[in-house]
């Protein structure tokens, strides 16, 4: 059993002073682990990650209860920049590239906290090998690259900081299947070689459970289930609702639930 690096303890999050979104979420991320955070739209995955990386303030949200500890240290009052210095980097949902900066500048900005020039150069090379497409587009302004290229850029940018813990928010979104595989392979690779810890929020349950060690399922602001990834993947409910393989083999997208839908639409 490895040591817990990140310990989220019963946090509540409120947006705008009135909207209660997380209702006591607790989770632990072990050193060198890959932990998946699953759940439907609006479950609060993004919010949880924002709470950890302290990016809530900009959204006018606040942690009102509970505690978040990084290697035993309370981190709620640190700035996001402090956290990056401690090795915690978030890849934000929806890319958030710096629109006016070129892809390369975006990546270099990612290494703002690293002063070692050689290390930065090495990281840049690494990112380019992971994502050759970025190398081709290195001189175009981020705003003018395709959705998937921006997503790669966002992930690459986070890697530039040589992080020890990466919070990945929907990394697979908008990526071609091959690249999705690659991204997860990169995660696995970094995890294996550099013992980087990952906490990833994903909709692609299949992939996420395949590559992670442990999973939490979040629904309407509460953790409803957790367990080792293999265990979750074997759970009947999970199979039914998240993997779509409940009760036998995979169903075609054409056939599911058509009755319920059709009825409502025509009503």
């Amino acid at each position, binding site marked *: 059993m490895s040591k817990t690096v990140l310990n989220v303890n019963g946090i509540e999050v409120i947006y705008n002073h009135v909207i209660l979104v997380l209702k006591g979420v607790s989770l632990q991320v072990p050193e060198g682990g890959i932990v998946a955070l699953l759940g439907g739209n609006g479950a609060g995955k993004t919010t949880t990650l924002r709470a950890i990386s302290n*990016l809530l303030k*900009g*959204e006018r949200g606040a942690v009102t209860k509970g505690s978040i500890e990084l290697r035993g240290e309370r981190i709620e009052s640190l700035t996001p*920049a402090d956290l990056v210095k401690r090795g915690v980097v978030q890849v934000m949902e929806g890319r958030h590239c710096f629109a*006016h*900066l070129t892809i390369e500048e975006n990546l270099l900005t990612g290494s*703002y906290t690293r002063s070692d020039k050689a290390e930065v150069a090495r990281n840049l090379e690494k990112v380019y090998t992971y994502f050759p497409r970025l190398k081709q587009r290195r001189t175009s*302004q981020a*705003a003018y690259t395709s959705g998937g290229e921006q997503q790669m850029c966002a992930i690459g940018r986070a890697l530039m900081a040589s992080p020890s813990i990466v919070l990945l928010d929907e990394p697979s979104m908008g990526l071609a299947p091959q690249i999705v595989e690659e991204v997860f392979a990169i995660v696995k690779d970094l995890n294996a070689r550099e013992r980087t810890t990952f906490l990833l929020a994903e909709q692609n349950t299949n992939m996420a459970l395949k590559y992670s060690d442990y999973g939490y399922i979040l629904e309407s602001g509460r953790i409803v289930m957790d367990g080792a990834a293999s265990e979750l993947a074997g759970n009947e409910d999970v199979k039914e609702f998240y993997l779509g393989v409940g009760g036998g083999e995979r169903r075609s997208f054409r056939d599911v639930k058509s009755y319920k839908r059709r009825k409502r639409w025509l009503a």
Partner: protein
Amino acid sequence: MGFFLETLLGGLMAGMLYSLVALGFVLIFKASGVFNFAQGAMVLFAALAMARFAQWIPQWTGIANPVFANVAAFLVAGLIMFAVAWAIEFLVLRQLVNQEGATLLMATLGIAYFLEGLGQTLFGNSIYKIDIGMPKDPVIAFDKVFEGGILVNQEDLIAALISAVLVALLSLFFQKTATGRALRAVADDHQAAQSVGIPLNRIWVIVWCVAGVVALVAGMIWGSKLGVQFSLATVALRALPVVILGGLTSVPGAIIGGLVIGVGEKLSEVYIGPLVGGGIEIWFAYVLALAFLLVRPQGLFGEKIIDRV
């Protein structure tokens, strides 16, 4: 012909003086995407501080040397501007991370009111003098070539040189350093900038300090021209078309914009003004800027406005 050149020259130099104020706008916009309404108030505040300390320091120390007094006052005023920058970051900007431009704009407006009140409370509200030994009397050049010669204003010339140096330094800073890149990142997306570990707080303190110093230099030069009093804050309004024409995000743009506006404004007033009763230069400056915008909506050197789906 002589007169035309003279007007041209006058316009160029007036333009450089505008640039000095415009620079402050550009700096802060570039670094945080905030249009800083308080720039005028900062110029006033800095100039007031400098003028008063130049008066007080000899009284306190008993050293009557004007050079010493001015240098010391400049330093003290600079320190005060640092304190102001720090306070603004701590009390205002830090609280408004990731908010929209309009909100931040409004906040700078609140700052403007506050600084105007504070400046006049601390330093008084009459007219004060900044005497940095600028030569006031004109020199006449080329009086062999043109009848009456061309009048050159030494004070303006020096001021223009100072602006040019300042702009050159700042351009280098933005283009060549990692901080420069970080600033541009912050202006694009506060949250993403935070997420990669750019310490917004420190960045903002730095930028506002630089803007404070720029405001101090502008205040010093304009103050020595106009005298230090409340109206100094209104030069910001004259500098606005300059910023817009040059592009809100471009340091060299502030200079070019200044020159274009300065020349356009003076030539129009002198040559077109009399035909329509005069007093047109201020709106002409704005219309001129607008004309440029119709061709380039982001100003001459501004970053392209991106809208993509």
